[in-house]
């Protein structure tokens, strides 16, 4: 436990339990009172407060993990504001008020003007009114019986579902950041697909709430009942700035018998400037539970942002014949650090998992793949295939691969392949000699390298992801 936490824990009860605070923000720092206050502010039921308090008390006993291959200054957890009421982003009157750097990025990404306005929070005209889009969207989902709302709303309106599944995949005791998140989360998404329903459209956070600053500790819970299926998109390619440096989200997925969840992320958080100053620390716990037989959970991620990424979307394959997949592209440039990968835990019989990881390092960045495949003693006939490829751009970056295998059943088959390649002078010269410019060459090489992952993304996401990588690598070679 850090000394500052200790100091707070041991200090006398100072502020008392205040109920009628006028301000929208509570003071910096974390204590049991703060946790109570967050819960109270959100008018949460007693069980929710209990959940948070248990998490908080457990968190106090934990220490920050240090095994990841990343380094960063000590985080002062008492220097963080843990609750501020959702406040609307500042509306801008026209695109002229938007940061030109942001506009340039939008143009490079090929984002249509209407969408640019929405992302930059410029008032939009009637035709492209996001509210009407969102309304149509909601009606369609309601018809199908799909619940898609903020986690806070779900706690109020669907307490029985939240109570049943929250923390069932990532218990509060799971790890340091998960415990912290469980204690103080204020925002996130909830999604429930009833039995037999194929969600009529891809669910995107983009449509859910866009006029509020996202929370620092997001909590997402997706439950797919028997024989249902859903595809969920998180994030967007537009650069995301945030004044909060530490982000510790928790995402939990539950798939019952024959259910299918596809979770795609394109993440482009602010990574700091070229010298690595500023930038977001993204410490995320994402896990899916294939609870039922023949269920399937597939993670696809394109990670390009954050100063530091610590993230392992994982699958627990409990149901017999269940399938877990992880497709990842992680790109680091300048001084970014990423330690990302997955865990596939095979418990049920004939469970299968596939891991395709593509790491691209440029500049002075450090990119590590960390993956664990664990085959339990009862996982008869389990199979895993892992492929981890790294690409280095320039002489000053690093790529590492840390595979962990634990096979507890003799009938299991586990395959692991790894490769490292370089975009070097010879390759660039080959393209140049065929009349192809360096930017096009890099984009072609990178796309080729990431093809197996990009094909897993929904179409429009894939196109944007391609452009995003090009943009991120601008000027890295030659």
């Amino acid at each position, binding site marked *: 436990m850090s000394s500052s936490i200790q100091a707070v824990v041991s200090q006398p009860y100072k502020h008392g339990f205040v109920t009628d605070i006028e301000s929208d923000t509570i003071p910096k720092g974390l204590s049991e009172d703060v946790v109570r206050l967050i819960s109270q502010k959100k008018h949460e039921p007693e069980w929710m407060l209990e959940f948070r308090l248990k998490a908080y008390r457990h968190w106090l006993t934990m220490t920050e993990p240090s095994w990841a291959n990343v380094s960063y200054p000590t985080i002062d957890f008492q220097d963080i504001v843990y609750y501020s009421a959702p406040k609307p982003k500042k509306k801008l009157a026209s695109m002229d008020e938007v940061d030109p750097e942001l506009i340039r990025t939008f143009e490079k990404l090929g984002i249509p003007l209407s969408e640019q306005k929405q992302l930059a929070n410029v008032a939009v005209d009637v035709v492209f009114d996001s509210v009407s889009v969102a309304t149509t969207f909601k009606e369609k989902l309601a018809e199908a019986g799909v619940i898609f709302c903020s986690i806070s709303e779900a706690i109020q309106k669907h307490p029985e579902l939240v109570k049943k599944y929250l923390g069932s995949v990532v218990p509060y005791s799971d790890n340091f950041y998960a415990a912290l998140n469980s204690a103080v989360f204020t925002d996130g998404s909830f999604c429930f697909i009833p039995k037999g329903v194929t969600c009529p459209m891809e669910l995107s956070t983009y449509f859910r709430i866009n006029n509020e600053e996202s929370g620092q500790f997001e909590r997402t819970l997706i439950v797919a009942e028997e024989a249902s299926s859903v595809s969920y998109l998180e994030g967007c390619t537009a650069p995301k700035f945030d004044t909060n440096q530490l982000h510790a989200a928790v995402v939990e997925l539950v798939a019952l018998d024959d259910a299918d969840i596809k979770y795609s992320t394109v993440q482009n958080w602010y990574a700091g400037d070229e010298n690595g100053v500023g930038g977001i620390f993204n410490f995320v716990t994402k896990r899916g539970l294939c609870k039922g037989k023949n269920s399937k959970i597939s993670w696809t991620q394109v990670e390009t942002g954050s100063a530091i990424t610590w993230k392992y979307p994982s699958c627990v394959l409990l149901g017999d014949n269940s399938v877990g997949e992880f497709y990842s592209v992680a790109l680091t440039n300048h001084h970014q650090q990423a330690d990302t990968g997955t865990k596939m835990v095979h418990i049920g019989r004939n469970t299968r998992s596939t891991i395709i990881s593509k790491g691209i390092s440029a500049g002075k960045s450090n990119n590590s793949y960390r993956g664990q495949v664990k085959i339990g003693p009862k996982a008869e006939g389990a199979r895993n295939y892992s492929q981890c490829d790294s690409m280095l751009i320039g002489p000053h970056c690093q790529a590492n691969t840390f595979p962990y295998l634990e096979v507890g059943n003799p009938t299991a088959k586990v395959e692991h392949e790894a490769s490292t390649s370089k975009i070097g*002078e010879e390759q660039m010269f080959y393209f*140049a*000699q065929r*009349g192809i410019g360096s930017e*096009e060459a890099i984009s*072609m*090489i990178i796309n*080729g*390298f990431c093809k197996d992952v990009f094909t897993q993304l929904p179409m429009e996401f894939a196109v944007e992801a391609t452009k995003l990588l090009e943009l991120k690598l601008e000027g890295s070679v030659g």
Partner: protein
Amino acid sequence: MIAADARVILEVQNLTASVNGVPILKGMNLTIKAGEIHAIMGPNGSGKSTFSKVLAGHPAYEVTGGSVRFEGKDLFELNAEERARAGLFLAFQYPIEIPGVSNAAFLRLAYNAKAAANGQDELDPLEFDDFIREKIQVVEMDPAFLDRSVNEGFSGGEKKRNEILQMAVLEPSLAVLDETDSGLDIDALRIVSNGVNQLTKPDNAVLLVTHYQRLLNYIQPDYVHVMVEGRILKTGGKELALELESRGYDWVREGVGV
């Protein structure tokens, strides 16, 4: 086939170049006109490959003196891409593999880069498909190769055929073939040579850089140059190649007092 008034495609005068500060080319002189096939032969380390890379604009080589005019322009005013688009082609001794990028997509990008630079129409994927299906016959290539990743998992012979296919697509005015015969079995050598011969026209030229005479049985050069220690020491007709094959290179050195 050589017209007396043929245009000069390449004119190299007193070219010197070094790599990592070590001088490799020490005064190259060479003139190539339209319709001609030239061969540069020489022992290992004579600077043959360096010469071809300097022409193509490889960044590791530093030109330290002399001049090269290509199609009437100062070659060194152009970067590597511009040289390629202006019609200078290098068939690589070791072609690069590009995983995940289909051969067809790569060829089309190269074709369109050149077309755009020369004010010609670019081809969309369907038009290009018609175009490329004709071209692959030049090197007797199975269309399945078009869908495979560029050079990935290709045999040595397939890679070299692929280089000649690129030449067929780009229709360069000067094709420099750097050790294209190395690592080829007899069948592949025949196919590659056959391809090059089909692509040789009165308005373009070929420069073969090779170690061995056997390629010249298939592609008949008009001129054979012997390169030793960064310079051309002797020039002759195709019979010179046979003489080199039987006598080696030392007599050339001795003949000019090196």
